[in-house]
């Protein structure tokens, strides 16, 4: 059905295009992501960064091209099937269930009891609680398990959403501006967290804060008008004349 070949990459995007009424938000994009790789996508507003994440997680349907995750074509799968295949995505604004406690937020994200009847029969047993506590510790919220999550600070909400993804143990984790609105200290803690969780999986991050990008990125890709402008390590990208032109020329 698809002409692209299988690869060793966790994620391989080939010839991906999406157009909204003729406007190409993503234009013939090719992009590869390795296991254990933490890759940051940067670019000016409207470059198509969030659209790429939307395409991968199925929120937006591609006009043409292929997205393969562990050699499984994602472009024709529904959103929940993509998640179940092992792709987790954090939204730009913290997207948590404000009326539920931290524990309940993590429980709802726990990857068992995902069907209607499975959820009716689901039991909060010792295994579930152990996993929830383990994740809560990782995201520095182990003392807030019974707190209504709407009462958390902005930074804690961001962590909680990351935790809600971690509990599903995704092979690909996509984070849209994970440190937006965080204090300096919270940024440091988040950088540590991201370095830790990128082990054993692939992480794709969209971020504007260059200092933060430099701290976490293994590889950086600059997106501009739906196309890749440059890709490589932070230093190479920063010295790339095209990138300088796009960021400073306007």
């Amino acid at each position, binding site marked *: 059905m698809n002409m692209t070949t299988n690869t060793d990459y966790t994620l391989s995007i080939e010839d991906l295009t999406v157009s909204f009424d003729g406007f190409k938000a993503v234009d013939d994009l090719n992009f590869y992501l390795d296991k254990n790789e933490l890759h940051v996508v940067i670019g000016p507003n409207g470059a198509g960064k969030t659209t790429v994440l939307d395409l991968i997680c199925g*929120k937006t349907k591609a006009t043409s091209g292929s997205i393969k995750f562990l050699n499984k074509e994602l472009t024709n799968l529904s*959103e929940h099937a993509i998640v179940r295949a092992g792709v987790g995505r954090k939204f730009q604004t913290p997207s948590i269930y404000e009326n539920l406690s931290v524990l309940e937020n993590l429980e*709802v994200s726990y990857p068992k009891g995902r069907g*209607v009847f499975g*959820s*009716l*029969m689901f039991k909060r047993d010792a295994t579930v609680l152990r996993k929830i506590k383990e994740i809560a510790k990782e995201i520095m919220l182990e003392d807030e398990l019974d707190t209504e999550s709407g009462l958390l600070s902005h930074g804690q909400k961001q962590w909680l959403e990351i935790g809600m993804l971690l509990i599903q143990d995704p092979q690909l984790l996509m984070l849209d501006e994970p440190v937006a609105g965080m204090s300096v200290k919270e940024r440091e803690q988040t950088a540590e967290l991201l370095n830790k969780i990128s082990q054993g999986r692939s992480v794709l991050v969209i971020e504007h804060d260059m200092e933060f990008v430099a701290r976490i990125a293994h590889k950086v890709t600059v997106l501009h008008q739906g196309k890749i402008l440059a890709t490589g390590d932070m230093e190479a990208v920063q010295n790339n004349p095209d990138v300088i032109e796009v960021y400073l020329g306007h």
Partner: protein
Amino acid sequence: MSFVYEKLMGGKSGLVGLLILAALILVVFPLFLDAFRLNMVGKYLTYAFAAVSLVLLWGYGGTLSLGQGIFFGLGGYGMAMFLKLEASSPENTAIQSTPGIPDFMDWNQITELPWFWEPFSSLGFTIAAILILPALFAYIIGSAMFKRRVGGVYFAIITQVIAVILTVLIVGQQGLTGGINGITDLRTMNGWDITSDSAKYIFYYLNCALLIGVIIASRYILTSKFGRILLAIRDKEDRVRFSGYDVANFKIFIFCFAAMISAIGGAMFTLQVGFMSPSFVGIVPSIEMVIFAAVGGRMSLIGAVYGTLLINFGKTAFSESFPELWLFLMGGLFIGVVMFFPNGLAGLWEDYGHHITNKFRFITRLFNKKSKALSSEEMSADKASYPS
């Protein structure tokens, strides 16, 4: 044991709430009301099924249905068809030009029992149909809407339109449905006179037992992971979808369950009131059901029952003396509740109820020092974790 206590009763405060309600409808009403008034309360309590269904669907699921009358009506008509067939035995209808069919069919020059009426001569089929057909209908509507991600106001309008269509259909097909008059003259059930006082008492108690059963089943759903997913969908639908859930299936399930509950109420209505008509299917009853749930508290299964009783007592009291004012009053009450007390009676109870319970606690403490165990902290912790 803890499963029954926590999951079905809803912990301490949930159990207390349920026991108070049970005492009120099972003991207090039968003791203090005559057979006529008790039958009227029984009728109100059939609406409470629909109000409880709206707590699940609207309060927790965030999906407002303005068409619960559809399912109430389907349940009611199912039961009415069974009773009507029994009342239309060839002996009872010997004077008709076609004996053995319901009288309204004979008046409409129908000479043969329509095919879809036939199976309703069996009580077993009728009960199964009352439970399954409305749920099946809800499944079809729900799949068509939720799979296409139609929700919110659009869903409310579409359910309302379906309620209108169904009413028009029932009124228009007089020969098949009894038309605007509905299905009347229902007398016996398997030979048992349902208009007798003893039958009315039995139906009243059956109705109460079913209502409590429905509340317990609903509590089980709300305290399970399903309940938390339902709340999560109401809060952040996309987050749930991108956590690996097929959101539409959850909405379809709760819509079907709500339909089934409403249909049970409809069937009990027919049994207690003795007829069924399109005026319990359309827009007005459907919106009234929403008002019952809103006034009682759309997040409270038990509150919905009190809301239903309160509004209906009010309706009866006012419409006896000021019939034309009642609709305005109810409309005003609805607007007032939505604007100032979004959580209805149950919300008021949670905000101010402890003043009253504190007084009672003072009295009980005089008799029993141990009642300190009911500290207000525990009470509020219970309230937070279990739907009341």
